[in-house]
Each structure stands twice: as C-alpha cells, then as structure tokens.
C-alpha cells in the first residue's frame, strides 16, 4: 500500500529556513547549530537563507563590477558598450533615471547607490530561488523585514535631515493647506494618528508584499509538483509539468517586477519626505 505523500510538509520544508544546505549528488552541508543571543531566543547562526544572501551579495558585486570594467574598457577605446556590459548598463541607467531621480526629484543623486543596491540585491535573491537546489532568501519574513527596516530608517532620517525638526514635525501633525482656527485643530487631531500609523505601515507593506509574492509563487509550484506524487500517473505528470513551466516563467517576471516595485516605492517614499512644500 503506497503511503500518501505529505505535501504540506514538503512545501514547508522547501520554502522555510533550515540548518541544512542540500546540493546536487547527495552532498549535504550541515550548518552550525542555533547560536542564541544570550538571554533571548533570537537565533543568529548561519542558516540556509543567510548563506544564500551572502552568495547573492558576492554575485552582485562580481557581476556588476565585471560589467562595469567591460563598459569602461570599451569606453576608453571610444566605442559603445556591448554584450553583458550593455545589458547591465541599461538596467543601472534605468534605475537611476526613471526610478530614483524621477521620484526623489533634485538631490536624488545621494540616494542612487542605495536604490541601485536594493534593486540588484533583491533581484539576485529572488532569482536564486528559481535555480535547481536554490533557496529564496527574500521568501523569509526576517530578510524582507530587514530590508524594509533599512528603507524605513533611510526615509525617516533623510526626511528629518532635509526638512529640519520643525518641517519633520509638520509631516506628522499634518494640516491641509488653507485651513485656520478650529478647522485646523480638528484636522490635526484626526490626521496625526493617521500619519503616524502611515509611517509604520508603508515599510511594513513593502516587507509583506515582497515576502508574500516570493513565497506564494513557490507554494504554487511546489503544490503542483506535489500533485504528481499524489496521483502517480503519467498523463497528469505531463500536464502538470507543462503548467509548472508556465508558472516558472511567471515567477521570473514576478522576480524582476517585485525588485522594481520595492526600489520604486522606496524612492517614492524618500521623495515624499524630501519635498514637503
């Protein structure tokens, strides 16, 4: 009697973090066990997603640096860029011009390195999950929470430095233009909690959006593949594999789109805080 496979367990094993990295040919790397910050239950050890994040960071550095050197070499020869360097240059210029500077306005050059780094790091993390034996670091709520925390700190601190304390306070105790007297006080009383909650909710939505998009895609693909094990039928397997191929192409699109949306929304929020008048 064939035992019915536990698909839920398989899905959760494949998408969640663990201390075991599985590589082809049966190679398994056991990572050192949980290291707790003394006195808490916070685990700061190397886990699968941490290793993949470091790998993505090294990959970003190597590929973009190599592309930059290629572009510079051809620039010195007086020719335009070609090949991989041209593709990377197109993406970098797109993020700089149409995402960062278009949404932050003047003074946006300071934030271009941050937006570029966010875009490429999130893109590489998303794409690593689509490779065989890969894992998606951004499918982990802690990773996207960390990225959203960085975005939150940059938005608030840059806004504070650009507007000054009084201007920054005006973004919280917000009074629509042209109201005076009792109307202004009433609006301020209503709008202040709304603005405060908005400051927290916007980066939280960034975090949740990225996490849910990445995890949902993997859940769908793994559930469909689990169907093959459940039915153990050649025809169903053929149809399922075709559908999974289509879903993976959609995942590719979603990986690029989510990296772009994260960078775009971060630059929109920074721009909103820089120019309040």
């Amino acid at each position, binding site marked *: 009697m064939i035992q019915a496979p536990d698909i839920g367990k398989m899905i959760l094993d494949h998408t969640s973090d663990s201390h075991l990295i599985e590589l082809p040919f049966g190679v398994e790397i056991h990572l050192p066990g949980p290291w707790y910050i003394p006195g808490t239950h916070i685990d700061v050890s190397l886990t699968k997603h941490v290793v993949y994040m470091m790998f993505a960071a090294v990959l970003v550095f190597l590929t973009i640096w190599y592309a930059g050197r290629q572009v510079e070499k051809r620039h010195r020869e007086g020719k335009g860029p070609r090949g991989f360097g041209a593709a990377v240059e197109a993406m970098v210029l797109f993020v700089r011009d*149409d995402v960062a500077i278009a949404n932050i306005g003047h003074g946006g050059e300071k934030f271009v390195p941050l937006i570029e780094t966010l875009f490429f790091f999130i893109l590489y993390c998303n794409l690593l999950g689509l490779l065989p034996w890969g894992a998606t670091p951004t499918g982990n709520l802690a990773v996207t929470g960390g990225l959203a925390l960085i975005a939150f700190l940059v938005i608030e601190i840059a806004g504070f430095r650009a507007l000054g304390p009084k201007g920054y306070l005006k973004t919280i105790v917000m009074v629509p233009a042209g109201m005076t007297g009792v109307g202004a006080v009433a609006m301020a009383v209503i709008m202040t909690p709304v603005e405060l909650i908005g400051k927290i909710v916007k980066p939280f*939505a960034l975090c*949740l*959006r990225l*996490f*849910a*998009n990445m995890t*949902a895609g993997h859940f769908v693909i793994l559930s469909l593949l689990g169907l093959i094990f459940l039915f153990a039928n050649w025809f169903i397997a053929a149809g399922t594999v075709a559908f999974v191929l289509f879903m993976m192409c959609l995942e590719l699109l979603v990986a690029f*789109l*989510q990296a772009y*949306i994260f960078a*775009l929304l971060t630059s929109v929020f920074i721009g909103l805080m820089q120019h309040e008048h």
Partner: protein
Amino acid sequence: MHTLLMLLQEPAADAVKTALNSNALLGAGIGMGLALIGAGLGIGRIGGQAVEAIARQPEASADIRGAMILTAALIEGATLAALVFALLFKLIK
C-alpha cells in the same frame, strides 16, 4: 461512573479542538476567496482604464504603463497581505 464521565470528556475536548481547527480552515478559505475577488475587480478596472487611456492618447502610453504597473503592485500587496494572514489561520494550532 467517574471514569466513564472522564472518558466521555476526552472525545468532547478533542471534538472541540477539531471543530476549532476546521472552523479556522473554513475561515481561511473564505477569506482567501474574498481577497481574490477584491484583487481581481481592482486590477481588472486598472487594466481596462489604462488600455482606454492609451487608446485615447497613444503618445502618453509609457507614463500610463508605468502608473498601471505601480497601482497594480500596490493592490497586489494588499491582497497578498490578506493571503498571508489566511495562512496564519491555518498554521495557528
């Protein structure tokens, strides 16, 4: 008699626990369906009005496409937040 009452209470507690779990699953399922209806309506409207706007003014199509993708991603974010909380219902013991 006492042991019989204790034995009867065991399946009752179990039944309550199973009922809670299946109610949680039912709630999660209905929640997911409703969230998906909202997302479909919202993104459908965006797509339709964006295409109409491009038809009326083809030279603004790049701007309209950018705005459409941004708004669709924001609505998708809200939907996926609902889905994540529905998943939470499934995972709570």
